């Protein structure tokens, strides 16, 4: 990775040069250097496998410019970037690309205004050890998870009982897949309309594991999210293995409506695939949110509050500034069941303020709710994370915190459900009829149980039910919110959701996949 000092110097030189270019009214310079270090894990006891399957990395650095050119109204604005170089040569190339591609976007207002005294929400928050990971350390992080899983398998009395002899344990079809990911991000940002060069360094480590005992039709999940290398324990695989073993021997349930407790992963999956896309300002702009016209109005149970907070020290998805140079911070999305805020970047916030249909789209005049649409989430994510120079800022959530006006222990959630299901992991959760309708479907693939008389009874057999329901119904049917939150990630998501268990009045369930057991 390029050192931060080099990125900062590159921005200074670029800004100085751009101020001399006659047709440039205004320009923003974004320089970044990213590395995504990743070990994919794959172990199968009865199929040859590598354990650590892919120790790999993806690195990139370069410069990106957003430029407003002279040329009348609407303003002529363009974006250009250059990879692998942050010198003045790269600046000239990027500027040329921005000039060639510039368009007159009637909804463009200005580049971000950082104010007289731009500030970072947090500083020096990243872990230097994560920033200097060696190839050997990367490999060993992966093997720590694999070895931990094999330890859990080897010491399991249940596996021995099922297999009858130690030599036959591999025949049970033991599986571990998952990863350890380290993201290393450095950025520097400046502009011709101010004299500041803002810099930021961020790093995080995550591990996600799935384990199975195939002959027992059982699957378990484990994960860990952190901001510091020293806190990484490599235990996600062992946790997944123990959860898989614990959930063996499950039962099927018939079609019907069930009261449920949703665990942290299903809560996160619903948040990631349905709620967060629905509470982005751009979605309202396109008339595509299921909550059109509902800003300030009730959309969920009064028990529920949700906020995004990009400036929580020690939280994995925190950043000092956005990729537009603006301070990160807290955006309340749902407070006691009311929709009170939307995720946004500078462009979206500025254009909704000019939009003649804004009041119909939002339900309120955005000029009177500026705090609700503050541009605190303008990031340039992609390729599994990172802060990339080669794209315009989009809108990305950070740390998403699920809160409750009244939170209760897990035992109380089970008591409120009485008879129903504990859903611990769902799969392929998609808005099956589009975001606007909020209908969703998914299957239940593990970590799940039948609840009887307010207690966990036997496991629910994985891959035997499909959920068909609607996000609005789930949000309004909340029976209780747990008092313990777990930082949770789902595949290909950028945000970290700090998710509690949530009890819900009803989910519609269909039984599936019987032919795999009956053979016909």
């Amino acid at each position, binding site marked *: 990775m390029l050192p931060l000092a080099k990125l900062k110097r590159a921005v200074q030189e670029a800004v100085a040069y751009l101020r001399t270019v006659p047709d440039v009214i205004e320009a923003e310079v974004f320089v970044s250097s990213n590395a995504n270090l990743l070990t994919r894990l*794959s*172990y*199968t006891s*009865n199929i*040859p*496998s*590598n354990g650590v399957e892919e120790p*790999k*990395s993806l690195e*990139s650095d370069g410069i990106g410019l957003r430029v407003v050119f002279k040329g009348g109204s609407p303003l002529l604005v*363009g974006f250009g970037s*250059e*990879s*692998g*170089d942050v010198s003045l040569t*790269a600046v000239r*190339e990027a500027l040329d690309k*921005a000039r060639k*591609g510039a*368009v007159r976007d009637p*909804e463009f207002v200005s580049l971000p205004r950082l104010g007289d005294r731009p500030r970072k929400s947090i500083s020096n928050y990243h872990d230097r050890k994560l920033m200097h990971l060696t*190839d*050997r350390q990367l*490999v*060993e992080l*992966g*093997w720590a998870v694999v*070895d931990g899983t*094999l330890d859990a*398998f080897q010491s399991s009395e249940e596996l021995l009982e099922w297999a009858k002899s130690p030599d036959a*344990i*591999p025949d049970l*079809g*033991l599986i571990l897949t998952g990863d350890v990911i380290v993201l290393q991000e450095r950025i520097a940002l400046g502009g011709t309309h101010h004299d500041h060069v803002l810099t930021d360094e961020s790093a995080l480590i995550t591990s996600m*594991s799935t384990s*199975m005992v*195939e002959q027992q039709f059982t699957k378990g999940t484990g994960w860990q999210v952190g901001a510091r290398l020293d806190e990484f324990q490599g235990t996600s695989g062992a946790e997944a293995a123990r959860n898989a073993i614990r959930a063996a021997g499950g039962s099927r349930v018939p079609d019907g409506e069930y009261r449920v407790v949703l665990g942290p992963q299903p809560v996160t999956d619903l948040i990631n695939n349905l709620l967060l896309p629905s509470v982005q300002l751009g979605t309202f*702009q396109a*008339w*595509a949110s299921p909550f*059109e016209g509902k800003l300030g109005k009730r959309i969920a149970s009064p028990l529920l509050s949700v906020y995004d907070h990009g400036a929580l020290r020690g939280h994995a998805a925190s950043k000092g500034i956005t990729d537009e140079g603006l301070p990160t911070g807290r955006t309340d999305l749902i407070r006691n069941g009311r929709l009170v805020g939307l995720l946004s970047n500078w462009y979206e916030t500025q254009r909704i303020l000019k939009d003649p249909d804004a009041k119909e789209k939002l339900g309120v005049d955005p000029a009177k709710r500026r705090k609700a649409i503050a541009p605190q989430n303008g990031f340039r994510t992609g390729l*599994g994370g990172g802060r990339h120079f080669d794209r315009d800022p989009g809108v990305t959530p950070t740390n998403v915190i699920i809160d409750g006006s009244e939170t209760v222990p897990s035992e109380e959630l089970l008591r409120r459900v009485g008879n129903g299901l504990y859903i611990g992991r769902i*799969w*392929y959760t998609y*808005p099956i009829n*589009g975001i*606007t*309708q909020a*209908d969703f*479907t998914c*299957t239940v693939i593990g970590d799940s149980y039948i609840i009887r008389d307010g207690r966990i009874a036997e496991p629910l057999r994985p*891959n035997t039910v*499909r959920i*068909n329901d*609607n996000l609005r119904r789930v949000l309004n049917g909340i029976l209780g919110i747990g008092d313990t939150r777990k930082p949770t990630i789902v595949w*290909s998501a950028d945000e970290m959701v700090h998710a509690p268990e949530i009890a819900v009045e009803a989910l519609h369930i*269909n039984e*599936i*996949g*019987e032919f795999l057991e009956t053979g016909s």
Partner: protein
Amino acid sequence: MADRVSIDVIDRIRPTVAQVAQGYAKRLAGMQHCDIRVEASEGVGAYAENGTPKGSGEERGFSFGVRVLAEQGGAVAPGYYGKSLGAADVDNIGKTLREGVRHAYDRARASAAHKATSRGRFGRLGESLYDSALASVDVHVDTINAVYEQDPRQLSLEKIMGQLIDVSKAVGGTSSKVRYNGTGATSLLIRDLFCSSNGSNIDHTYAQTEAIVFVMVNGDTGPLELYDFNGHHRGWEIMERGYDHQYVVAPDLMSFATDLAQQAVATANAPPLPTSDGDVTVVTDPHYNTLLVHEIVGHPSELDRAMKMEAGYAGRSWLLNSINDTQIGKQIASPLVNAVSDATIEGYGNFPYDHEGTPARRVWHIRGGIFEEFLNSRQTAEILGVAPNGGYRANDAAMVPLVRMTNTFFLPGESAPEDLVKDVEHGYYVKGHRIPSIAESRENFRISANQVYEINHGELGQLYRDGAIQADSKDYFTHVDGVGTDFKMYPIPNCGKGQPMQAKRMGNGGPTMRSMAKVVGP
């Protein structure tokens, strides 16, 4: 230093890449295999929204990726490295590639050493930690050129931006019910170079032109969003006048976009589909079967997934329990069902070699209802003891390839498509694919459709919105009782798999087909 990266950079660096793979890498102690992929691309892209321009620009890419298999401590393991490059890297490409090889090699050796230790430590459980190996393929030295009329490098940004604005305006003008629309397009030339330590040296250039159209409509029965993709391995000419080649469907962009808008307006005025009590007769059109074959035949036929390597991400496959317990040779569908992956024919999944130098060929997944063959890579083929069949592909040279579909489709049958509807006393005609949700081993699916029509006495009747088919995969295939002659193939540009997720392009398709399934509404 080069001012700007172009695809011509491959000509300049090809000897150096080959030298690093076949010289430098082979001299490293314990090196078993090394391959280097380099990709350069150039072209243009633009996006319009509600008839106004939103952005345009030149698109350029330059990157490389390395795979190494190396021995240490008595075990063999893989290591990888990937990096985005720029013009400034061209003069130092040899050094940059050697550094990449060195990182991959160090990772492979460190992993191999630990693998050897874990084998000893975990007894029987450690025995499956094998010495990584690749099934052999012949050495190929080849150069393949792209086919196009309008060179993506010569395209004017003003021209495509103007056309996109016209299309977006036309979509908006379809009906007052259209509240929002967006149209984006890119046209690129992409050049892949593959050099391996065993001497393969393959230079493949292809054109890729595609568009996405998104329409948001407020109908009588509520808001409805539809989107779809158009594209082919040709130049911008396909967006201006379409491409009509037998089964390949690539209309001109204006027709494509306005047809989608009209479909959205009609559907947004329709009532929601009532959910059926049980299975009913369903006739599915070629566009719907494009996603069906993708999700329910293509994905479970990927051997890395079947070998559990994707269990934590994209899932497993019900077609393989273990190496000795598979569905190969077993009847999994009606004898009328035939499905293949074939990268050798025209389509969005066409290529001459995959990303490890294996020549493309037709892979029969289902023949006469019997499952025959998985798509594989050299690594997974070696484990299963079969020949590599050319399915190992990545989104970008810096990314690690995965087993991917090519042109994966249902083969046509012998029924006239209209007869498949005429014979139905009561059922549903399911038109156009929308959004899928698939069970973990692809054993069950719910896939929504753009439109669902009720069939009464062999005639199409009431149109419904927000409808889907839900079924167990084997049940659905077993009940297929009619396959049409009207085979079509469409582009799928966004198939997610891997970690980090790679959204891959491929061709999928099929004819009209008839089976039994539950239809599901909101």
